[in-house]
């Protein structure tokens, strides 16, 4: 039998069977527990598999990574802060950090800004679904595919030759010389070009969430404002925008984390060359190309520390929102 068929069988029948089996088994275990304690124990038993997975695949590797980051390449000896000193003393790492900051600022601006504008603009038009679908579709494309697509968009041929790249093709219509978009490192233009690719993908995500929040704003609220003589711009600034703010904050933090984790697009489009490197790619290279697990772990820890405050902010906001409810 085809091994794929067997895998399909295991997934379709086996996974539900194991789940039911587990719940069934917990009930048997609970019989030993005294009646009045059962309600207290049950949730923990149900949570146990998830907690076990969380521990094995998240907590344990995180602790392992932190320990590994203080060890040398072979993992034989502890070297103190050497890996971290290397990271902050290496030119490549500083460039990668700079680029991550560019990603961090530019990507939320483009996606949330773009998503907000589009969501508000298409809110009251007849072809709203069509317009939103078109903006949303790129999110379904894998990042690698998006990188390949945009490599064609940014393609460069020397002046005088037919321009195969879409952007340079447009420039050629106006008689402007082509620009080798992904090799120009002046003003980090190439990094910006890469951010645009990611923004093209994620604007649809921001738009959909913001649009949903927009639908939740009561029409009577807006009507009341209009009756009171507010202009459309005032309605947006004083009523719609403040009500959207919690949603925008959640979308922004999600996008910020995406920006920090950027890897695929940079790997596919430039391989980190021409000063476009980012932290995640740097970590990948140290680990898989140079086989230095110590340094790779140190980079991972730096990345983790950078993400933690943003996550904390996100959770805090989430709690505050829950409290309002």
């Amino acid at each position, binding site marked *: 039998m085809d091994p794929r068929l*067997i895998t399909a069988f295991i997934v379709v029948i086996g996974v539900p069977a*194991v789940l*039911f089996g587990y719940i069934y088994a917990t009930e048997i275990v609970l019989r030993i527990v005294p009646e009045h304690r059962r309600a207290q124990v049950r949730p923990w038993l149900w949570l146990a598999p998830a907690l076990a997975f969380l521990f094995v695949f998240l907590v344990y590797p995180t602790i392992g990574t932190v320990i590994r980051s203080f060890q040398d390449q072979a993992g034989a000896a502890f070297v103190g802060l050497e890996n971290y000193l290397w990271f902050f003393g290496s030119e490549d790492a500083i460039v990668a950090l700079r680029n991550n900051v560019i990603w961090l600022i530019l990507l939320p601006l483009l996606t949330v800004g773009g998503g907000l504008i589009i969501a508000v603009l298409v809110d009251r038009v007849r072809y709203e679904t069509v317009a939103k679908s078109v903006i949303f579709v790129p999110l379904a494309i894998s990042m690698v595919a998006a990188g390949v697509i945009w490599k064609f968009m940014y*393609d460069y041929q020397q002046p005088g030759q037919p321009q195969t790249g879409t952007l340079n093709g447009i420039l050629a219509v106006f008689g402007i010389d082509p620009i080798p978009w*992904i*090799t120009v490192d002046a003003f980090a233009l190439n990094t910006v070009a890469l951010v645009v690719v990611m923004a093209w993908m994620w604007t649809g995500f921001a738009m959909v969430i913001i649009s949903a929040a927009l639908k939740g704003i009561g029409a009577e609220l807006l009507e009341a404002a209009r009756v009171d003589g507010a202009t459309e711009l005032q309605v947006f600034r004083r009523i719609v925008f403040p009500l959207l703010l919690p949603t925008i904050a959640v979308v922004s933090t999600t996008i910020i984390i995406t920006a920090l984790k950027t890897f695929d697009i940079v790997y596919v489009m430039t391989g*980190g*060359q021409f000063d476009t490197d980012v932290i995640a790619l740097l970590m990948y290279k140290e680990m*898989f190309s140079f086989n230095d697990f110590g340094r790779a772990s140190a980079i991972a820890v730096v990345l983790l520390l950078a993400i933690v405050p943003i996550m904390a902010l996100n959770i805090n906001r989430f709690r505050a929102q829950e409290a309002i409810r």
Partner: protein
Amino acid sequence: MRQRTIRAKLVTALGGVLLVAAACSSSTASGGAGATVTVIGTWGGDEEKAFLQMVAPWEKTTGNKVKYTGTRDINQILTTGVASGVLPDLAGLPGPGQMAQWKASLKPLDTVLDTAKYKEETAKTLVDLGTIDGTIYGVFIKSAVKGLIWFSPKAHDYSAAPPKTWDELTTQAAANKGSAKAIWCMGLESGAASGWPGTDWIEDLVLRQAGPAKYDEWWAGKLKWTSPEIKKAFETFGQVVANTDGGSNTILTTAFQTGGDALFKTPPGCEFHHQASFITGLGAFKAAKAGTDYNFFPFPDIDPQYTGAIEGAGDLFGMFHDTDAAKSLMKYLVTAPAQDIWVKIGGALSANKNATSYPDDIAKRSAALLQDAKIFAFDASDKMPSAMNNAFWTAILDYVKDPTKLDAILTNLDKIQVDAYKPA
């Protein structure tokens, strides 16, 4: 009653899962005739097809199967594979450096191959590159001559009197330029490995300007990048870049596969393209006719005392699991009849001296170059530690982008050299 049926159903379902799991494990454990050998290599497209054709006769006679996966990230896959123990049976190895690093996971091949015959049929340099402390761990399945200079005989035929020295090349190029836009063509884009065609340039120049002794010191990390020998090679390369079609923007954005395509344009974009023998299987070369549309001459001498130096490279192969089928395949791959299959398809030179079914005169001549080389140097960047090799690629790109930064680039390479060669 109802509860009992649910329980019965659950038991049947769980039993089914166990049965399936058992069937699954038995199917992978079956060996002997009809076994599958997993192979990972860097070849894709036409090269992958050629490799599969090469193993087809073996599959037919033994009844075994080859499951081939081609990947650009072989170094990454094998690094994690060695750490985790999940490895293919046979794999292409990125270079002799990695082979030494993974020695503990690789299987010795001395008893697998017909060793006496293998040593007799293969160039000594190649045998040595696959040997660690007298034991063979890697073999070459095919090879390539690096640093050939390709031209279009239709623009100017150099084959009658090819330039013998670098100075002759410069003067002849200026004299015969004709309608060509520039002297050289170049394409450095190659995904995550962008820049490597430039490292071949530097290697060819170092080998002929400074000689094989300095060349060996250099890749072994004993010669600084800021030393006059290496700096001079970069500067000579800089002159080439300055005379290349389209300038740095075109060089950096053109894929290495199509780097020489401008040779065939009218008017030609350039007179020469510097690339290894495998270019004949890539880009516009593939459709062009050998001898009439394109031809080559070997890289000319620079310092006469190093006459006859040739840089070569090859695809090293190692074995991670010594199953009977894997051993049999390994034994087959180094033989002349096996390598002849790929040689006949084109784009590759054999590593085996007795595989000589080259499709045209050009392939035959490049194979002869490799066999008759007085000084054979293996691709230096392939022998460097990967961190050094990676930095070398980046340095090439940075230098082509802005040649005025040469000193800063070389100083940075020195810094990485100190770090990359320190014992793990």
